[in-house]
């Protein structure tokens, strides 16, 4: 029995076996993740930031793409929960000998994996893995499609500073076309009721404008619409949050952009541009950053830049997700 003075939240059950994208999460489930993350933050604040919640659980981290931030974040999260962690980098596995994804998943399962955190360069690959794996798949990023833990840590970070994000103007600025972060953020932020704006050059907004138009009269059930524009000033005006996205150099080679210089001049997040937003506007970036391209170096280190806080919160959110997928209940974290 909980006898605190805190407002009692509706007791929401976690229904998900896998977490492949945030599109399947209701707002109540997203709030459950947020509450569980609060508990994990409390664990992380302890001198010994480790709980036995996932003792005896094998968490295999299977990454088909290079990653430092996300892979280490998941590894730290799993270890904080006392899970047994196995790391597989695809370049050093039999994948290079031509083993199929399905065979790799079956092999990992036979080796004892209870949960797989998976990063893959192909959109949808975790759905294939989920069809053959008996345990839980946690999508650590697939192609251009989804990066659910990133979107949830972004939302957590925004809420930590703004409280409820409902009605708050959040701008995602940059290469959304190739961004799984952007797509997952569309689902989570429209579920949370934020006033979401997406901004970039027309060549890399392709498809998003049509998506926004389609959702203008109401999107998927429980989701608000959002706005897409190439007008940076309109997007940034009075914004509460500005999230810059990494611009990849190879996009120029594909003929999508004339030059990095031109991109930086027109769409880079500079101090001058940031002045259009609210004075308190948060600056975010999922990393890794191209300083001087999508974000000016002096902007990245402003007091209201929460970029390193995103990294810290990432561990707590991933602990929460691993914990919920393993069947845990948020109120039980501290006793687990």
């Amino acid at each position, binding site marked *: 029995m909980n006898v605190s003075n805190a407002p009692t939240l509706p007791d929401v059950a976690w229904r998900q076996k896998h977490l492949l994208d945030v599109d399947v999460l209701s707002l109540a489930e997203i709030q459950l993740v947020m509450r569980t993350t609060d508990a994990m933050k409390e664990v992380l604040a302890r001198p010994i930031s480790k709980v036995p919640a996932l003792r005896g659980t094998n968490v295999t981290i299977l990454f088909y793409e290079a990653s430092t931030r996300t892979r280490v974040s998941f590894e730290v999260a799993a270890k904080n929960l006392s899970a047994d962690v196995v790391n597989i980098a695809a370049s050093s596995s039999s994948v290079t000998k031509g083993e199929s994804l*399905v065979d790799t998943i079956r092999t990992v399962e036979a080796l004892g994996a209870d949960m797989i955190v998976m990063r893959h360069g192909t959109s949808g690959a975790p759905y*294939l893995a989920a069809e053959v794996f008996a345990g839980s798949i946690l999508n650590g990023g697939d*192609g251009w499609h989804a990066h659910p833990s990133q979107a949830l840590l972004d939302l957590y970070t925004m809420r930590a500073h703004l409280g409820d994000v409902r009605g708050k103007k959040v701008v995602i600025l940059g290469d959304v076309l190739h961004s799984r972060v952007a*797509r997952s953020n569309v689902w989570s932020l429209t579920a949370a009721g934020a006033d979401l704006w997406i901004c970039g050059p027309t060549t890399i907004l392709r498809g998003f404008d049509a998506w926004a138009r389609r959702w203008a009269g109401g999107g998927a*059930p429980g989701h608000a619409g959002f706005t897409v524009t190439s007008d940076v000033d309109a997007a940034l005006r009075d914004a509460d949050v500005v999230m810059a996205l990494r611009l990849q150099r190879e996009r120029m080679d594909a003929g999508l952009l004339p030059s990095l210089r031109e991109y930086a001049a027109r769409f880079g997040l500079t101090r001058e541009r940031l002045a259009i937003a609210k004075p308190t506007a948060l600056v975010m970036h999922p990393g890794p950053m191209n300083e001087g391209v999508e974000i000016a170096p002096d902007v990245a280190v402003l007091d209201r830049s929460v970029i390193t806080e995103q990294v810290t919160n990432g561990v707590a959110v991933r602990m929460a997700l691993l914990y919920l997928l393993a069947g845990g209940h948020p109120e039980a974290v501290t006793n687990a």
Partner: protein
Amino acid sequence: MPDLRVGETVQLLEISRAWLVDPVGEREGPGEIVVRDGILESVTWLQGDEAEGIGPGGVLVLPGFLDIHVHLREPGNEDAETVASGLAAAAHGGFTTVCAMPNTTPAADEPGVLARVAGAAAASGSPVELLAHGAVTVGRAGERLAALGELADAGAVGFSDDGSPVKSAVLLRNALLYAGMLGLPIVEHAEDATLTAGAEANEGLVATILGLKGWPAAAEVSAVERAIAILESVLADSPGARLHVTHLSTAGALDAVRRAKAAGLPVTCDVTPHHLGFTDEWVAGARRWAWEALDDAGAARDPWADGALVAHPYATACRVNPPLRGATDAAACLASLADGTADAVVTDHAPHTAVDKETEFGLAANGISGVEMAFGVLLAAVTAGRLPLARAVAALTVGPAAVLGARPGRRGAARGLVEGAPADLVVVDAGDRWRVTGDALLSRGKNTPLLGRELPGRILLTVAQGRVAYRDADA
């Protein structure tokens, strides 16, 4: 239907009180047929009281179907399909003639490959007639013309580099000129490959949300318009030149063909059951028919808003070239059959092994196994009131026959219910349904998003050249 064994000549078959469709005589209605010793002995149209209670929702007797675009994978990929398994599958789909595409390994770019395929058909013992297209270019590499004249002499009914477009405009021009001299069509897979490099799914809402690289309609529209312009430019020098654009999937490309036909150009085209019945929503996990995905204004609905996603997203069975399009393009494909812009329905039957399909969506092979489900998909459209039955049957019979051209002596070319000719027909119970399962399919390719689903129209019997090509075990 006793005493009907696959491969044997039909001794005696009497079907009374059925709904007959004869696209040659442009007639449909209640009737009876008698087949004796393999010959369609009599066709009787019933009138008055005798016709009472007989409708198109019961037993249908139709001419055998003709599919001018199938992939039988032999030689080279016999684990995906063989000529024998492909012909058995065709018979199960009601087809009595199929035309194999030349993108085998090696490609059918010289008469030896055609002879090998014909030999496999003969060895299979199937009464289903196998025709073949030859390749346009050597190895389908798009560099030099294949042995078009020798291929024609060996029986090729057209030329195609299908799987890819003829790479250069100048080669397409020369192929149209030369094939025109031979009296044969160029069957063009119209795609501007510069617009589709790495493309995965129809450009639009579904591809955007799923993070798949968009496959723009403009890639097809511009390629069709280019091919038509080139055709027009060669007619003065090669009056027999003919262009057939295959598996059109977009309203824009069909409009281009409609305009070219109105201008009197010798252009024909076809559409597939999957492009008129399925949509790109299926990639996201929807499974409603294309005509159910339209709103009252004729625009595509949003499957996320509708809660219409019932299956896993990224099913590789939905990956095909050209891609499944939006509901408005699918509606344009259906409308093109109704108004005659599309001359034929082809299945583009593209069997693949599980290995080539049980993989990431972006790495999976393109193609849908379709020859056994084609009539069921069309009948679903007929039942929904979206397509007249007579048009569906014409697009499977006289339509494709006209694309190939009426050549004296070719078997089955008539595609009607003709008394005194060898029986070539399909008997369907339009009131019955069947479940598409891996075991039910005779094709080695089980790659269809219809797996597990029921289709209307159980095919009871297929008779080709007077012989039983398929019969339902329970009929």
